[in-house]
C-alpha cells in the first residue's frame, strides 16, 4: 500500500504524482485504441437486469420478505380497524375505515382489574427496569469477557464453561432458588433484585460475545498497554472500551430486546406498581371482557414491541457488524 508514499517521502526531486501525469500513455506497448480490436465478443459481458438469476434471487427474497412482514402487517391493519369490521372482514384486508381508537384505548384506557390506564402505566416502569438492567449487565459481562480474554487466570475457563452450560437451564428451574437467595439478602421485590436477576441471566451469552470479541483484538495492543504501565482497569477503560463499539451495540440490542420483552421475571420479582409493560400487555390481552377486542390487543402488542423494534431499525447495520466480530470465533 505504501510504495508510492515512500517515494514521496524520499528527499528527492522526484514526485510520484508528476510521474503519473508524465508517463501516462507513453509506455503502453504500441497500438492505437480500436485498431487492434478484432471480431468477437468485446467489452463487458452482456447481462440483462431481468436475467433469470435476478428473477429467482429477488423473487425468493421478496416472497420470504412477505412471509416475514405478514404478521406485522396483520397486526397493524387489525389495530386500525373497528370491531365490526374485524368480525366480518378478512384479516388481511386493509381497514375500510381507519381508526386510532384501539391505540388510544390500548395506551391509556384498557382495563385490568380496577386499573383502567392501559399500557401507559407500564411504560415508565419498563424504562425504569430496562436502563439499570442493561447498563449493569453489560458492564459486568464486558468486564468478565475482558478478564477471560486478556487476563487468563486459573479456573477462569471452568467458570466460563459453567456459565455457558447455565445458558441452557430453563428459567423456571432457577426461579425458586433465586427467590430464596434474594429473600435471604433482602432484595426480593425491589428494583435492585430484578436488575440483578436480569444481569445474571444475561451473563452467559453476553460474556461469550465479549470474550470472543476481546480475544479477537490484537494481543500486542494489550501488551503495549502493559509496557506503558496501564493496569487492569486502565487498559479496560482507555484501550479496550473505545475499540468495542460494535460489540457494545450488539450487547445493548440483545439486552434491550431481552429485558424489555421479559414477562416472567418482571412479574415474579416486582410488585404491581413496578410491573413492566409486558405484564400490562398480558393483562390487557388476557382480560377479555365480553368480546375479545382484537384491535386493542394488536395495538397493545405493537406498542409494547415498539421500543425494541425501533432499536433494531435504527441500529440494525451495526448489529450485523458487531455480531460478526463477537460470534465468528466459536
Amino acid at each position, binding site marked *: 500500500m505504501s510504495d508510492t508514499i515512500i517515494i514521496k517521502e524520499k528527499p528527492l526531486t522526484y514526485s510520484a504524482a508528476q510521474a503519473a501525469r508524465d508517463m501516462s500513455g507513453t509506455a503502453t506497448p504500441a497500438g492505437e485504441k480500436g485498431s487492434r480490436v478484432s471480431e468477437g465478443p468485446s467489452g463487458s459481458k452482456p447481462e440483462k437486469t431481468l436475467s433469470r438469476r435476478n428473477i429467482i434471487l429477488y423473487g425468493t427474497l421478496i416472497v420470504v420478505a412477505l412471509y416475514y412482514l405478514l404478521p406485522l402487517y396483520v397486526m397493524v391493519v387489525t389495530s386500525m380497524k373497528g370491531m365490526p369490521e374485524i368480525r366480518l372482514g378478512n384479516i388481511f384486508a386493509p381497514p375500510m375505515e381507519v381508526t386510532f381508537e384501539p391505540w388510544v384505548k390500548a395506551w391509556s384506557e384498557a*382495563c*385490568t*382489574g*380496577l*386499573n383502567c390506564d392501559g399500557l401507559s402505566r407500564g411504560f415508565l416502569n419498563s424504562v425504569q427496569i430496562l436502563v439499570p438492567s442493561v447498563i449493569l449487565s453489560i458492564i459486568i459481562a464486558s468486564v468478565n469477557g475482558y478478564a477471560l480474554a486478556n487476563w487468563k487466570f486459573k479456573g477462569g475457563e471452568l467458570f466460563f464453561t459453567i456459565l455457558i452450560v447455565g445458558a441452557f437451564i430453563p428459567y423456571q428451574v432457577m*426461579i425458586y432458588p433465586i*427467590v*430464596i437467595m*434474594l*429473600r435471604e439478602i*433482602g432484595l*426480593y*421485590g*425491589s428494583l435492585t433484585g430484578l436488575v440483578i436477576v436480569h444481569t445474571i441471566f444475561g451473563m452467559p451469552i453476553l460474556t461469550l460475545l465479549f470474550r470472543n470479541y476481546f480475544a479477537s483484538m490484537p494481543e500486542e495492543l494489550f501488551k503495549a498497554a502493559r509496557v506503558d504501565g496501564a493496569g487492569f482497569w486502565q487498559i479496560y477503560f482507555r484501550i479496550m472500551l473505545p475499540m468495542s463499539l460494535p460489540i457494545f451495540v450488539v450487547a445493548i440490542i440483545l439486552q434491550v430486546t431481552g429485558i424489555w420483552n421479559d414477562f416472567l421475571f418482571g*412479574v*415474579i*420479582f416486582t*410488585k*404491581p*406498581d413496578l410491573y413492566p409493560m409486558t*405484564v400490562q400487555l*398480558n*393483562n*390487557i*390481552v*388476557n*382480560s*377479555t*371482557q*365480553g*368480546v*375479545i377486542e382484537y384491535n386493542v390487543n394488536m395495538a397493545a402488542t405493537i406498542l409494547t414491541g415498539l421500543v425494541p423494534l425501533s432499536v433494531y431499525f435504527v441500529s440494525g447495520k451495526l448489529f450485523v457488524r458487531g455480531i460478526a466480530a463477537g460470534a465468528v470465533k466459536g
Partner: protein
Amino acid sequence: TDLEVTHWWTSGGEAAAVAEFAKAFDATGNHWVDGAIAGSGGTARPIMISRITGGDPMGATQFNHGRQAEELVEAGLMRDLTDIAEAGKWREVVNPPSLLDSCTLDGKIYCVPVNIHSQQWLWLNNDVFKKAGLEVPKDWNEFVAAAPKLEEAGIVPLAMGQQPWQTSLAFQVLLVAVAGPDIYNKVYGDKDAELAGSDALAPVFEAAARARDMSKKSNVQSWNDATNMVITGKAAGQIMGDWAQGEFQMAGQTAGKEYSCLPGLGMNEVIQTGGDAFYFPKVDDAAITEAQGVLANVMMAPDTQVAFNLKKGSLPVRGDVDLTAANDCMRKGLDILAKGNVIATPDQLMSADSVTQINDLFVEFFNDPSITAKDVQTRFAAIVADAE
C-alpha cells in the same frame, strides 16, 4: 393505609365485582391497591406464592377455597384471623358452615370466604332452540337429544373452552349430575378407587364422551369466549359455573328470557360450596396489619356481600342477607342452598396435584377422540387410587 390486594379477576363481570370490594374498603379511609394479574389462577398463583415466600407479601390475596394455601398456612406465613372471626361471629353467619371449615386449620381461621360458586350449571341460548324448532331442554338428556338437529342447523351444540380446568369441570359436573352427590363424595372425598372404576360410574364417562362429540367444533380457549359463543348464538349451551352469568348480564341479557340455566344439569340439583377466599399474609407493618383486619370485616359485611355477589353472579356466604335483587338463576341457587343440597369442591377434597392430574386426563380425553370412555375410566380410577 394502602393495601395491595392481588387476584385474578379480570373479566368484565369479575372486575365489576371486585370494584365493589374496593369501593367499600376505600370508604373506610383506607386505599385498595389493585394487583390484578390476568390469565387464570395458574398464571397468578406462582406470582403470589413467590411473593409470599420471597418475603415481600402483598396485603391480601385471593386463593381458591380449599387446600391451595394449606402449606403457606402451615409454614406460618399467613395471618391468623380467628379473633376477627370470633368478633364478627362468622361461625354463626356463614352458610353453609363447611365454607368456614375450609378456612380452618388446627381450629384457627386463616381466610375470609367471599362467595359460593357452584359449577353445576348448563347455560342455554333460548333463541337457538326456538330457531331450530326445538323446545328449550329441561335436563342434560333432552339437551343431548336435541344435539343432532342443532348440528344440522350449523350450530355447535356444546361450547367448551380448551383450558384444562374447563374440561375437568365439565366432567365433575357430569359426574355429580349423572351419578349423584353420594358417589361424588365417595370418589373425591374417600378416594374410593374401586368405585371409580366400577360400572356405577360408566354412564358418567359415556356422557362425557357424548359431550366431547358435541363440543367437537368449539374452537376457543378461554371460558368467556365459550360463553360468548352461547350469547351470540354460535353455540347452544355450555357447562359452566355460575360466574358465566356475569357475562350474560354484561351482554345485557336476562335469565329466562334470552338464556336459561339448569342447575345440576337439571338432574341432581346440588351446589358445590367452593368459592373464593382471601388470605392475609403476615406482615411486620402494624398499619397494614390493621388495614388487613378492616378489609376482612368489610368483605364479610352484609352490604358488600350482596353488592359483590350480585355483580359476580355467585352466592353470598352469609345466610342472613337480603337478596331481593337476585335474578332468576341466582334464586334457583339460593333455593338449593337453602335445601342444604351442598357438596364440597374437589379443591377442598383433593390436593392440587391430584386435581391437576385429573384435569390433564380430561384435557387429553376431550381432545383425543380415540380415547374411549372405558380407557379414561381406568386411568381416572388409577389417579384416584394415588390421590391423597
